[in-house]
């Protein structure tokens, strides 16, 4: 094992959850009818008020689905988000979007930054509070990270991705603090583009640390190989993350293992990792539903390198592209697989 100094922890509240807690990564199944409704909004066929009312109902159903599946940590399914970029781009003061109609809701806007980003709120705490009010489970709230945003938002001001990302981190840091003040105890940063640009990792870690500085919540970082349209954007291995990622002041690192295999688990044996592992044990790019036994087998592989108190369990990525019944069944398999292993650890019946 490579020796390494453990980074200083931020003042984060402890979460109440069982050993091997289970949770979604973020997004939940977007059914075909909701895709149509979303597109209708972007084609200006329905009002924002109607869309919001429909989304409210969909989020209630999504949270109920997660509770019924037996998850310990739930999300709002990100069901208000058209995609992982535009939902933030339209809320970022200083980001300009010249044309706001879309042929398909999931398409990206042509967003551009032409001036320095002002320090203005995004009002995301409203979304968090809506979800929080629907459940007594831990609610995780996620934001797309600066690295991914600077890859998608056209930069006509900074002319330097690192500088642009650093300023985004400054704005998002204030937003994270507002979310924490509103009661968010678990916040997640999504960086799905990192796998395609491993050469950026060095500055991304610095930006991440700016982003989470002083935020009094547990911070999760999710790095996958992309899930746009339910397929990977890149292939490779997580070796590029190490050892630099160990400097990130995060509490949990969520990685995908169900689809790609568990070879990269060895990295957690090789390095003294100061944060927990959020292990992806559900393949979100395959509609076949895993059995609880298959999930349990993967978890046991994780436990070979990470002690139980440092292992969280989740799907590889968001469930947005899976049909609703499949998504719900996969989450149930996740919870049941975790229960099997938990019982083995505790010597009880699952």
């Amino acid at each position, binding site marked *: 094992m490579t020796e390494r100094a453990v980074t200083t922890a931020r003042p984060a509240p402890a979460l109440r959850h069982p050993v091997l807690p289970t949770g979604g990564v973020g997004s939940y199944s977007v059914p*075909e009818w909701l*895709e149509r409704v979303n597109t209708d909004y972007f084609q200006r066929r329905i009002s924002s008020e109607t869309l919001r009312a429909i989304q409210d109902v969909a989020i209630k159903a999504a949270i109920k689905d997660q509770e019924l599946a037996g998850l310990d940590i739930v999300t709002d399914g990100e069901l208000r988000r058209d995609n992982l970029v535009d939902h933030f781009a339209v809320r970022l003061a200083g980001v300009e979007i010249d044309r706001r109609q879309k042929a*398909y809701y999931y398409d*990206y806007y042509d967003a551009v930054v032409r001036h320095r980003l002002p320090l203005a709120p995004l009002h995301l705490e409203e979304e968090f509070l809506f979800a929080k009010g629907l459940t007594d489970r831990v609610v995780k709230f996620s934001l797309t990270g600066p690295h991914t945003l600077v890859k*998608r938002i056209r930069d006509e001001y900074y002319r330097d991705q690192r500088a642009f990302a650093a300023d985004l981190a400054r704005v998002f840091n204030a937003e994270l603090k507002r979310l924490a003040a509103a009661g968010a105890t678990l916040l997640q940063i999504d960086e799905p583009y990192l796998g395609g640009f*491993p050469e950026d990792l060095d500055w991304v870690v610095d930006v991440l640390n700016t982003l989470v500085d002083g935020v009094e919540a547990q911070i999760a970082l999710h790095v996958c*190989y*992309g899930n*746009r*349209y*339910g*397929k*990977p*954007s*890149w*292939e*490779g291995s997580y070796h590029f993350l190490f050892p630099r990622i160990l400097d990130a002041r995060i509490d949990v690192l969520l990685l995908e293992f169900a*689809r790609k295999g568990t070879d990269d688990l060895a990295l957690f044996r090789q390095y003294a990792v100061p944060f927990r592992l959020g292990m992806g044990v559900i393949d979100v*790019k*395959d509609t076949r539903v895993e059995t609880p036994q298959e999930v349990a087998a993967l978890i046991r592989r994780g436990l070979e390198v990470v002690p139980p108190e440092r292992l969280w369990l989740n799907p590889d990525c968001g469930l947005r592209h899976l*049909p609703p019944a499949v998504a719900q069944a996969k989450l149930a398999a996740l919870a049941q697989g975790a229960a099997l292993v938990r019982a083995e650890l505790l010597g009880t019946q699952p």
Partner: protein
Amino acid sequence: MQVELNYLKNHRAVDVGPLLQALCEEVEATGADPTHLYVSLDWVQYKRNFRPPVDWRCYLLPDGSLEEVREIAIDVRRLPAGGAEGLADWRPALRQALSQPSLGPALPAAPAAEGQPLYLEPFVRPSQSIIWAFNRLYWQHLSLWEAVFRGDYLAALPGGVSDGMNPQFWRERLEAFLAVLDDLDRRGLVPEEIFVLELGVGNGHQAKIWLDTFRALCAERGRDYFRRVRYLMSDYSADVLRTARRAVEEYGEQVSCLSLDATDPLHALAFLRYKVLFIHSCNLYDNLPTDEVARRNGHLYEVQVRAYLPAAAVAALCATHQQTPETLPTTIQRLLRIGPEYFDDPEQGVRFWAAVWEALRLEERYVLLEDAEGYRLAPGVYGVRLDDVLGQFPGDLRMHLSTMAVQSFVNTLPLLHPRGMFQVQDLFVTSLDQYRGTFRGPGKLEGSIVNWLNGPLLRAVGDHLGYTVHFEPFTRYRAKSNTVVLTTSQKE
């Protein structure tokens, strides 16, 4: 009377004046209601096809009751010479089409009565028709068919050449592939095994040109990729695979042959999900079962067909092949199930098969789609509806749904590596407008079926799956080619 001119062939003018004159006279003579008559004039360019020169179609409501509209479909290519006088032979057919009172006889439990056609199936969606069993039979027994008729499938292609073997095309495509690999290599991401998948292998020459060209390119550029290539030849016909494998014998274990269902490659190759770096096919999709829909006066109809043998063909088949009208249906079923070996002399079996195939026709009807919004385009296709394709294109139209090609497309893309290349060389309609100009199938090509593919539909399906679908005419490589090359790129 509404007349649809659908016979534009190489911008050649056809004088249909005498035909329309004759039709009007027959309308008057039969007392048919011209206000509910739709006349479709096609140019069926396939000399072997499933249509009589004059055909008729009825329109049904979902409960099976007849609408007042009827459609007369005429193949203008077979228009008799000699103007009005030449049309004398067609008069009875026109009269019958206009006066046919009902749906024709139901599928008879007993053999066809003398002078009646022999129906081989009830009305079904075209993709479910027995014609596809004939198509399958052809590929499963291709070598026997070619031995009997001393023919070569390639010789039946327009121009007698497959565009899948064009050296310049392949050199350019594989140069682009090399660039993809170089880009991955710069990031240390070239996998140890470079999987290449060919769907539908023909005689194996396309695999050979791929391997020869790529080996030469790697040698020229000093790249190490070729030794990593694992070339997968796939086809549902073991007979075709056996023949094709011989063409690439020199590549030994770098080439594997897989018997798989072209509509679901993912099922057989699940272990290669997102791992195949190059996927290609040529003249496969146009040979997969397809359904059709038609829009008439704003209403959407599903086309249904039933295969039959015309009365004259039944008599001829019986006389030539020692059959009776009573034994003929069973013999055909056994031929389709067992193959030509059902006959003591397989060569005689092939000749019987070819004669039935030659005579086979499709009767068509239209059934109103009550829930067009909920109509599934193909098994496994979600999120794309008919209106997504038709919505931009008002007016009457009849188009293929390329059902199994779409299914194959949807079940192949998940095999593609995120930076992989996907290409299909085939007959594509690239704008729905093209369904109005020329007949797009089905036609018969030797013992197989050919239908043009609905490019806009594939584009919509690809778009929903996160791929931009591009079409490029092959004319850059062969001036008179009808081939279009479909490629995909990942949508951002």
